[in-house]
């Protein structure tokens, strides 16, 4: 599946028990978090020497991953994925063979904050990349402003209740900072086993000065990183 999914994970499974319970009882995003799924019809026509659906699939397959993903620049994205819904699956006779009227670009994301702010941030921070993806979708050529984009996405929104509970509802920068601190601290512990108390205190003060727990933006993890990648 990885070939069609571009995943951007920024959370750890904290409060895993609560999350599991939510998963089993019908999920509800934690306070502050929200989910969005949009199905945008792909233009059923040629785009030069290719059909739009082929061109879009190739474009998505060629998108860079992780912190280099254009979606990593979108504020407060916990995770997101793109895929193409070709058609409904045909199971063979005696099932009826049914087809979708169109092929769809599916964009699915979990994020912090309210939908309008998220979509506005998406347009403002990844406009060019978004155009490159959505230009293959029906009527996207009419999208010119932030308000147009928000309206377009809302029109394509699918109201569902499937939220992947992978994190708290905190803003992304706080979650990344927590992950950074947790990792740095565990490294500190390993490095200072059996250190005499005075040395340990000095080292810890240096640790606090370096990691700046009160500053959520620096140093911290880079959004989208799948391995350790620190932003200072």
């Amino acid at each position, binding site marked *: *599946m*990885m*070939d*069609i999914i571009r995943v951007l994970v920024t959370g750890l499974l904290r409060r895993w028990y609560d999350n599991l319970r939510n998963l089993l009882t019908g999920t509800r995003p934690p306070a502050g978090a929200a989910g969005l799924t949009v199905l945008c019809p792909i233009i*059923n026509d*040629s785009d*030069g*020497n*290719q*059909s739009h*659906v*082929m061109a879009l*699939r*190739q474009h998505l*397959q*060629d998108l860079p991953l992780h912190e280099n993903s254009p979606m990593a620049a979108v504020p407060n994205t916990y995770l997101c994925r793109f895929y193409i819904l*070709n*058609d409904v699956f*045909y*199971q*063979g*006779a005696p099932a009826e*063979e049914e*087809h979708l009227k169109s092929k769809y670009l599916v964009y699915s994301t979990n994020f912090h904050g309210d939908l309008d702010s998220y979509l506005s941030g998406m347009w403002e921070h990844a406009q060019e990349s978004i155009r490159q993806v959505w230009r293959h979708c029906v009527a996207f050529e009419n999208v010119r402003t932030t308000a147009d984009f928000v309206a377009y996405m809302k029109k394509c929104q699918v109201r569902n209740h499937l939220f992947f509970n992978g994190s708290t509802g905190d803003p992304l920068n706080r979650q990344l900072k927590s992950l950074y601190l947790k990792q740095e601290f565990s490294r500190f512990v390993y490095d200072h086993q059996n250190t005499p108390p005075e040395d340990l205190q000095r080292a810890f003060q240096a640790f606090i000065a370096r990691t700046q727990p009160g500053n959520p933006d620096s140093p911290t993890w880079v959004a989208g990183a799948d391995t350790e990648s620190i932003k200072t």
Partner: protein
Amino acid sequence: MSIDLQDIQGNIVKGYAQYDYPKARYVFYHIRNEVAGRAFVKGIAPLVTTGIPWNKKAKPNAADAPPPATTNIAFTYMGLKMLGVPRKSLQTFPEEFVMGMKLRKDILGDDGPSDPRHWDRIWRDTSVHLWISINGRDPASIETRYQEISHLVAESDGGIIQLSGHHGPDGSTDLPYQSASLIYKNGIPQAREHFGYRDGIGEPYFMASSGHPNRVIGGGKPTRGDPATRKGWEPLETGEFILGHRDEAFETPIAPQPPLLAFNGTFMVYRKLHENVGSFNRYLDTVGENYPGGKELLAAKFSGRWRSSGAPVTRFPTNATAETFEFQLNEAEARLYAERENPSKEAKEAYVALRTQMAAFDYNHDLEGSRCPLGAHIRRINPRGALEHGKEAFNTPGALTNRRRILRRGLPYGEVADDSRDDGDHGIIFIAINASISRQFEFVQQQWINYGNDFKLANDKDPLTGNHGVDSNQQPTGRMILQGNSTATENPFFCAGIPRFVETRGGDYFFIPSLTALHMLSNGTVDPT
């Protein structure tokens, strides 16, 4: 459901020869390492011809303009492996494709002179990974495209090797590619093979087929309606020829994983078939002398079609009827050829009407085979519902044939220098396209060409293409019965001592990926998990 013809390689949905591409060059490659292999495929991908319908009036560089030369690409199992397709995916490919043609010789009847030991050197001494076909209007267009591809080979710095070892005329055994071409007569390309039969008439018509809707007549699957009209036929399901679509079992065909790798792709059979023209002519001359209908009727009974016109013998049973038809057909074709840049509606319609007659038949009025023998070539490879033997035994008359159809995309190769001799290098590059090589091509080859039980003909083989053997005195043992009619005005005739007219000289099984899958192969992103 509509099919994305821009995602499908053009050779699946188009027989290029019918679109004025009379010449072809087939080139084979070996991949030395994965990185070079993927880079080469990436370089070829933009050159690949898709299934998009052509518009003759489009500007030369428009997406729907017919190109000066076409390009298509396919892979053997070893080729996919060398491109780094993961094992989990490779394991989902069908057994016959994994084995390759050589190891399937017992099923295909490639014995005696057809044994892989006697094949062209390229098939014996090397490992073919990749096939590229270039079809062109003229040799120059083909050469231009060939040079473009050779440039990519040179760039691979030894990572890609173009395999030589094709046999040719004058005893050459190391030609760098296989050429093929329609046979020319008076400068006009003819749809004809070296035995003199008009070829390329019967073409399965399926839901994604292009061309005139009348092609469903005789090309589709039989209903119980009148076979002379469109009521008698329905298009075959696309899944018989293209993976990922509904097939005649009303399910999606078994296909390699992941689904995106197989979707809009298919399998191809490539076979170089030598034609023993001398033996064929001698047999027709000798036996035709004793056959009451004469030599040409004997040839027609072998095939099921008259040699010169292609008229089906079950519909045009006498020389007189066939000649009238041929006269009309020649006139219609000459007119269409003369108007080929901008054909008039009348010229096209006159041709389509005659062309339709060549396909608009079944064997319901000829169940005994008194017109078209039960063992004739075209009746074997496409029985058109005749396997019910008049009993309406199934829900549909095509029950035993609809899953055995193949698309043929080959061309003749070589020239016959002396039609009294068998040697030389001439025959047919047979190319078949189907969703399942074992269910479709191999079944037809094993059960219907090299065996006769389904037609109640014991172990008689196809007279023209069967692998007839020899007895202990090296005398040929092929047999065929030309059934008489029930009123005893015409007696049955027994053909004995038929030699092997067609011998295999090489080939293999290939996977034709979609354009999407080609992109995945070139990027190394085939992921079956």
